[in-house]
């Protein structure tokens, strides 16, 4: 079989590197690693529910981190559940809510551009008699409140609409959507996946009136291994994972304390100088968008512009080239991105998000996601802009579609 090490040798280490794939996961700043280190073997390495010193020290980490998270989303009375990632928190939100209310209602409304960790758990409930209704979005990814209100009926159990889209950066007006739902029937649970909103836009669970909200550590430069579900006080969930409970009522097994300590530090870093951090991301984002639009012909920007777009999101479709080959070509140049192409997925279809905003398949295949970060420098983006045009150009010289885009191929697919 293919040996990864040989491949890595052939690839080589590029002299200059810019990591723009923090959407999928990424590196952790040294301060965060520093904050984790003591908990591996200096202190707090005990079980947080056991009455010995290392256990009590562990508990202190968990307690103070939960306090910090609560403060960051203005969750005074809420209860927080720590899981291992956003995926587990989303599963708990969807399946845990549904099973807790099973006898009463069976309709789950989600947007067409939710992360698959919302779509798949919802779909998994269908065999138990639940119905999943996907609400379409407009060309920028927005859910229409009026359309949402028409879908609400007395069978409706919950609505789950993400705060910020992970691929195209659409910032939904969650407050308006919550009001739309609650005005019709305040017994309907409203969940929002805020994984890509946290650390980028203000979140206030009280002001939004939200019932459930998902966070994930690695999305804010924290370590992998921690996710969180905010659960409004009084809201009942049914556990979906079973075992020895420690400090978390809804997620069993011993907590990953070093990771929790790292998340805690990552929250400090994200929320100290929050505005400056966000401005930095925006500045780099706009620099990247404008640079690419200027330098590369035949590209489309996916998602909204301006204040309605996440400060760190750049998503472009490069026509006549396929996304996976772009990620490889850019990787060879030390630029690390991901693509909505079908080519890296187990299914035939490219990104359901890019398709949901009305893009064609071939446009979705050529979509590339760049995430900016407060840790990048202007020179990093300069470097990206110096490489992307040449990379796209090289792949276009390989592609038969450029020349044929107005010829033979159009006929082949039936236009």
């Amino acid at each position, binding site marked *: 079989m293919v040996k990864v090490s040989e491949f890595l040798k052939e690839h080589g280490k590029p002299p200059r590197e810019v990591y723009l794939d923090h959407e999928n996961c990424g590196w952790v700043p040294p301060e965060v690693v520093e904050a984790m280190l003591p908990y591996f073997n200096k202190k707090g390495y005990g079980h947080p529910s056991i009455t010995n010193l290392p256990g009590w020290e562990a508990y202190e980490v968990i307690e103070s981190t939960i306090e910090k998270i609560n403060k960051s989303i203005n969750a005074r009375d809420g209860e927080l559940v720590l899981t291992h990632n956003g995926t587990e928190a989303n599963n708990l939100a969807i399946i845990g809510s549904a099973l807790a209310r099973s006898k009463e209602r069976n309709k789950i409304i989600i947007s067409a551009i939710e992360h698959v960790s919302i779509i798949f758990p919802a779909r998994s409930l269908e065999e138990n008699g639940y119905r999943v209704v996907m609400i379409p979005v407009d060309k920028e990814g927005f859910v229409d409140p009026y359309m949402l209100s028409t879908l609400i009926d007395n069978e409706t159990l919950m609505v789950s609409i993400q705060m910020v889209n992970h691929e195209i950066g659409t910032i939904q007006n969650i407050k308006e959507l919550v009001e739309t739902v609650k005005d019709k029937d305040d017994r309907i649970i409203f969940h929002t996946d805020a994984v890509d909103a946290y650390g980028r836009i203000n979140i206030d669970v009280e002001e939004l009136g939200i019932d459930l909200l998902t966070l994930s550590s690695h999305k804010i430069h924290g370590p992998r291994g921690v996710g969180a579900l905010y659960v409004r006080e009084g809201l009942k969930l049914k556990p979906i994972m079973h075992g020895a409970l420690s400090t978390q009522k809804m997620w069993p097994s011993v907590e990953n304390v070093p990771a929790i300590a790292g998340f805690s530090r990552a929250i400090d870093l994200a929320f100290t100088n929050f505005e400056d951090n966000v401005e930095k991301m925006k500045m780099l984002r706009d620099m990247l968008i404008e640079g690419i639009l200027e330098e590369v012909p035949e590209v489309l920007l996916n998602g909204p512009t301006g204040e309605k777009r996440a400060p760190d999101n750049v998503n472009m479709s490069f026509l006549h080239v396929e996304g996976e*080959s772009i990620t490889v070509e850019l990787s060879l140049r030390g630029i690390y991105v991901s693509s909505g192409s079908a*080519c890296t*997925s*187990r299914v035939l279809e490219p*990104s359901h998000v890019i398709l949901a905003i009305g893009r064609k*398949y071939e446009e979705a295949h050529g979509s590339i996601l760049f995430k900016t970060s407060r840790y990048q420098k202007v020179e990093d983006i300069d470097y990206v802009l110096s490489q992307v045009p040449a990379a796209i150009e090289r792949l276009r010289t390989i*592609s*038969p579609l450029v020349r044929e885009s107005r010829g033979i*191929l159009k006929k082949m697919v039936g236009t």
Partner: protein
Amino acid sequence: MSTRTPLIYTPKILDLFRNPRNLGRMEDATVSSQAGSPACGDVITIYLKIDGEKITDASFESYGCAANIAAASIITEMVRNKTLKEAWSITWEDVTNELGGLPSIKYHCSILAVGGLKRAIRKYFEEVRRERPEWLPENLSKEERQALEEEELIEKIYRKYGVAP
């Protein structure tokens, strides 16, 4: 961003991706053909220069992932100076082996490359020679069928969802 699988390539594939052999449109090709569809995310164009029974030159274009580009490139290497009959007998497994292996999810890249080649050879006999040698089956080969299926499938999807391609 959805349901992924790791794509580990061989050094050979990366080499071919970086420095594709026999890249580009051949202006004086005896025959050319195409397989795949943009909507599916992969298209291979094969150009052949044929002299009698022999393929004297071959080149390719590719729209697709790194493996697609490498498969298209390597097959043009493999057919050079082969007879048409010999070229016809190349299987997708041969192409995969020549690349040093492929992740299973990428087998369709070799299949598409072979499909494109076979289409070109069939087209040559149908349109240029206007005769069919005995070794060339009347029915479409497996690889030609798969290319066709891929092309038709995407049209079906488009029709189903009512999207204009």
